[in-house]
């Protein structure tokens, strides 16, 4: 009945610094290979893929792609009827990709390129009477979508079009005995969904409803002997949880509850020294998703060669400052 500790062992010859030039190469290649097998088969999430690549590149002060092409692509993905934005051409609008598109446009200071009233209308149309949000017109409910809704509206300065009190009430109803949050009421706590709910509360200025220390304890217990963080008890470490957990702790004012040096060592060990990019665990295949969240976590850990990141939006702090958006951070 006893359990074996689920963790990985870091080898001797692991990278101990950020290999910036390799990451730029990796992310740039990824953006250019539109006809590769990976690119075609992940077409259903292209907008988010672009957000991961472009934000990662911005965090290391690079923007190799022509802005116009990107903005034109986003414009072509907006559905004129609903106002929502799809993952790619020939796909359907969805809240996940609407947020990714708006985030990219903020990076490029090009929000005016799309029909913002359409976006506002779309997000507002997805709120239910109980305050929750559906991901699209087919009605899947999840706290991920509550986050997408308020993040999108906050970036375009239209938060007032939804019922915030009801939205907060729904997120609050997803709080668990351990202080964490799940995808719906009574769903198990999960670091990714905790990030969504904490960032939601940070953006709406309602962080006071969380059980600060109880939740922070659960979050810091995600750290394993390897230094890496997992997303739930008794699971393997994964670089993306470095971001979901660390950003939540930052918003809760408890970043110092983590062994920063051990985590930094783990994240750096997940770099692929041959191709560039970060993987979930050392020795696995790297991808843009883990590359963004690895770099963003290193930024929260104070690595000066990486741009400062905003904990709620996972975007460069300079972009959020320019938009004059303030998020709540607990002390």
């Amino acid at each position, binding site marked *: 009945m006893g359990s074996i500790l689920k963790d990985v062992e870091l080898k001797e010859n692991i990278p101990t610094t950020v290999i910036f030039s390799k990451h730029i190469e990796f992310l740039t290649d990824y953006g250019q290979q539109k006809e590769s097998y990976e690119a075609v088969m992940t077409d259903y999430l292209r907008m988010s893929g672009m957000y991961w690549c472009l934000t990662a590149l911005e965090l290391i002060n690079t923007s190799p792609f022509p802005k116009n092409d990107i903005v034109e692509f986003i414009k072509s993905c907006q559905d004129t009827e609903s106002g929502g934005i799809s993952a790619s051409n020939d796909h359907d609008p969805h809240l996940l990709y609407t947020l990714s598109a708006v985030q990219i446009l903020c990076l490029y200071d090009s929000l005016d390129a799309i029909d913002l009233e359409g976006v506002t209308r779309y997000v507002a149309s997805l709120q239910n009477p109980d305050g929750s949000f559906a991901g699209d017109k087919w009605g899947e409910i999840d706290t991920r979508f509550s986050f997408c809704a308020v993040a999108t509206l906050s970036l375009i300065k239209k938060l007032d079009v939804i019922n915030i009190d009801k939205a907060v009430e729904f997120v609050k109803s997803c709080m668990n*005995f351990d202080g964490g949050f799940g995808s719906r009421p009574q769903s198990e706590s999960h670091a990714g969904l905790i990030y969504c709910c904490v960032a939601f509360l940070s953006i709406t200025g309602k962080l006071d409803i969380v059980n600060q220390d109880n939740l922070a304890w659960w979050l810091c217990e995600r750290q394993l002997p390897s230094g890496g963080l997992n997303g739930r*008890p008794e699971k393997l470490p994964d670089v993306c949880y470095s971001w979901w957990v660390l950003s939540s702790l930052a918003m809760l004012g408890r970043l110092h509850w983590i062994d920063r040096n051990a985590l930094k060592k783990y994240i750096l060990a997940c770099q692929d020294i041959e191709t560039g990019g970060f993987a979930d665990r050392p020795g696995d295949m790297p991808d843009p998703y883990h590359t963004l969240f690895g770099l963003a976590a290193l930024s929260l850990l104070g690595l000066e060669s990486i741009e400062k990141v905003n904990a709620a939006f996972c975007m460069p702090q300079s972009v959020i400052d320019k938009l004059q958006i303030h998020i709540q951070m607990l002390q």
Partner: protein
Amino acid sequence: MHGRIKVRTTEEQKILKDKENKRKICAYKKGMAYILSSRKKDSYDPESFSISSQILLLNPHVYTLWNYRKEVILMEIQKCCNMENELVKFLEKELDFTQQCIYNSPKCYSTWHHRYWILENHPSPNWDNEYTLCLKYLTVDDRNFLCWDYRRLILNKTGLCLEKELEFSTDRLNINFSNYSSWHYRSTLRVLNADTLENELNLVQNAVFTDPYDTSAWFYFRWILNHKEILREKRKEVLESLKN
């Protein structure tokens, strides 16, 4: 990309793989184009529906294809308004299909949602069957939170027998004390009171003594110990016993 180990390939293997991938890209693109053109016509084309099955079996994350299938189902519902048998047959086939997809990729949000959506539009949904299905999937992976979430939706339909659910949680814990999903589930089930606290405390104490390095039970332990009905003396006694 989670848990995909990097494998070294020879130049020869790479050429073969590239060739195979090119074939797959071509088939995927052709299939998607066919489905899109038939979708625009607003009518049910069995060929197009079948191509979407082939793509989804391999890649259930292509959410737009699930949307397309929902549109087809809505058309069938309208068409079969006087022939419930025909409709049920169609929907049951679709339920079987989602089961295959869940079996291939148990952690795809879109598939679970599609299955629930079908049942919501089914004239005579068999919720009990879903309850049994969840048990089957949780036996394979007792931490799959998508399945736990689905099970909760089903229980909202069937109603919940507290004793039965408590027994279910205890059974899962007896198989594996480090099943945090089950500890969490207990926390949602029971309104703790003076009568039940003792039993819960014993169960969770037993778990942490069995395997003190397993973190799951400690969270539940802490929660129970913080309960207002636990007397100060009792709490002190339990905490003292941990020192040994």
